[in-house]
């Protein structure tokens, strides 16, 4: 795994974050347009975690994501068009429209799925790490989950299992301070969430989830430990979500001021300023580059919009393995 290099991880991270944000920005609009069914949970503000962690992974590594999982999926290398198509329930989606926003899986790049059950990804990543150990293939698995999910008991079980078996799993806790409408301060008594990992023997670190470099470095160290057979790591990363939990969120649980204050710490803006200051990119170059990225997202959206809905007959396939 390479060290952080502003011109490499920094620049590609910036691009990926900007592209993901542009993708996610469109979610409420598509939702309002009636193109997204059920619920979809955008992650604006939280991009540095997905991107920073993914930069430390290879295609063979696995991730298990959450209900708020577009960024994780895209950062891991998913095609923007096929991801969008899945969110819109189209035949060209990763899951042929069967999954939707909360169930996007992409086997070939190790995306074991966004997931509708809060906390489920924890057990799933632990299982992927177990498979890695049994096969000895040296892959690692990442579980992304939120502050809310950290109150699910499965986390403690996973910590313990991963610690005693030294499973190559990285637990990435995205502390955006809210679980749906519940403030983390009300829902935990010991605010230092690294204590949860440590209690079970999982080396645990906290970091700034709005800082790509910091996330990348923490993730890289964790990946190295995992590949070296040293077992799991917990990363508790502070972050914030700019939009509501999902479409229709009245946000009575927080103030506009709080949201605006958080934006002052924006991971994309901050990194861009840094890269400009370091002379790695100019503002003009970035604008041009951003236009290209955004055009790619627009193309992804058009791809998805133009993709057909699945045939009704498709509803009955894929329940069981063929020929079983």
């Amino acid at each position: 795994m390479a060290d952080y290099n502003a011109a490499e991880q920094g620049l590609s991270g910036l691009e990926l974050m900007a592209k993901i944000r542009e993708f996610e920005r469109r979610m409420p609009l598509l939702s309002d347009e009636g193109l997204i069914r059920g619920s979809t949970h955008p992650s604006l503000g939280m991009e540095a975690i997905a991107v920073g962690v993914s930069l430390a992974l290879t295609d063979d590594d696995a991730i298990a994501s959450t209900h708020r999982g577009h960024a994780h999926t895209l950062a891991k290398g998913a095609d923007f068009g096929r991801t969008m198509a899945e969110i819109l329930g189209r035949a060209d989606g990763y899951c042929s429209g069967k999954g939707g926003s909360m169930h996007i899986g992409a086997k070939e790049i190790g995306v074991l799925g966004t997931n509708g059950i809060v906390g489920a990804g924890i057990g799933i990543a632990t299982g992927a790490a177990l498979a890695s150990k049994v096969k000895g293939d040296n892959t690692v698995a990442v579980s992304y989950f939120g502050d809310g999910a950290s109150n699910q008991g499965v986390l403690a079980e996973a910590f313990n299992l991963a610690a005693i078996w030294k499973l190559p799993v990285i637990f990435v806790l995205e502390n955006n301070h809210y679980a749906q409408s519940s403030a983390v301060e009300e829902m935990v008594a010991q605010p230092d969430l690294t204590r949860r990992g440590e209690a079970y023997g999982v080396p645990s670190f906290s970091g700034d989830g709005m800082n790509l470099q910091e996330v990348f470095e923490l993730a890289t160290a964790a990946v190295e430990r995992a590949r070296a057979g040293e077992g799991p790591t917990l990363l508790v990363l502070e972050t914030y979500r700019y939009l509501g939990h999902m479409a229709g969120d009245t946000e009575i649980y927080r103030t506009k001021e709080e949201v605006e204050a958080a934006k002052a710490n924006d991971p994309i803006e901050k990194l861009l300023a840094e890269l400009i200051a370091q002379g790695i990119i100019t503002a003009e170059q970035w604008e041009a580059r951003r236009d290209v990225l955004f055009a790619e997202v627009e193309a992804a959206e058009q791809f998805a919009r133009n993709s057909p809905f699945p045939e009704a007959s498709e509803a009955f396939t894929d329940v069981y393995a063929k020929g079983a």
Partner: protein
Amino acid sequence: MAETKDLVTWRALNAAMHDIMEEFPESFTLGEDITTWGTGGGTYGVTRGLKKKFGAERVMDTPISEEVLLAAVSAAATRGVRPILEIMYSDFSFLGFDGIINQAAKARYMFGGQFDTPLVIRSNGGSGIGKAAQHSQSLETLFAHIPGLEVVVPGTPGDAYGLLRTAAKSDNPTIFLEHKNMYYDKGPVDFQPIPFGQARIAREGQHATIVATQQILNYSLAAAEELAAEGIEVEIIDPRTLYPFDMDAVYASVGKTRHLVVGHEAVRDYGWGAEFVAQTVEAAWDKLDAAPVRVGAARTPIPYAQTLEEAVIPSKDDIVAAVKKTLA
């Protein structure tokens, strides 16, 4: 109280919650985001205004910890209080199935009748709004199979109100399954408790009996109109509770119509319709002129895209076809 009002389901449920919390000072309610979401009433509004009226001691937002919550309310109920726990989607109840099935359902029996367990687990099931595989299951059959549980599947705003009142009063653990696509259905509410184990005749008819709940009940009512135009008059029975069950209502109706269709949104295979068919043939064999027909969801998880979701869930047309099949 005597007055009847037209309300949407969530408002009927909300009214029931208010009345329950008045009626039983030992009742309390809890769940994820039940006071801080929306306009302060939880995901579908059912708990609106409760915290303001009854205080934070009786109306609590919980962490996302379904396992301990389901175990805890099971036990709290044995200690002289009446918990009403909201599980945001019934699919999440799997996280606490030990609490429901190994503890709450069995506590009275395995301890020889010492403990009342006046517990209500409110949740919702069903499909229709694109919530996909993990937020759309119809799990009522699983619960109905478990001795010790009562299972309620209200099909109208009025029933939602009346049955929730009864659930709260019951000294048994009650699984109360709202339907997520029916919170905005409107209907008359008379603000009276409705006893468990009494089916409702939703429509009278003499040619065939349809037993159905929730969305499929609605589709059946629509199918009935279509069939009536062809001269086929169906009788529609809403069992309202799957346990206790009111099979006598079914036998009586079949005695008249001599034909049975059972429809539900739960997966057809091993779904509750099989029990209704089996009991009917066992007890009322001679009353049937033809094989009963079941209508249920396909053996698939619930898919996301609308084309797919509609393909796996029974439709009005499926009901019409089933009636015609049994009458053929």
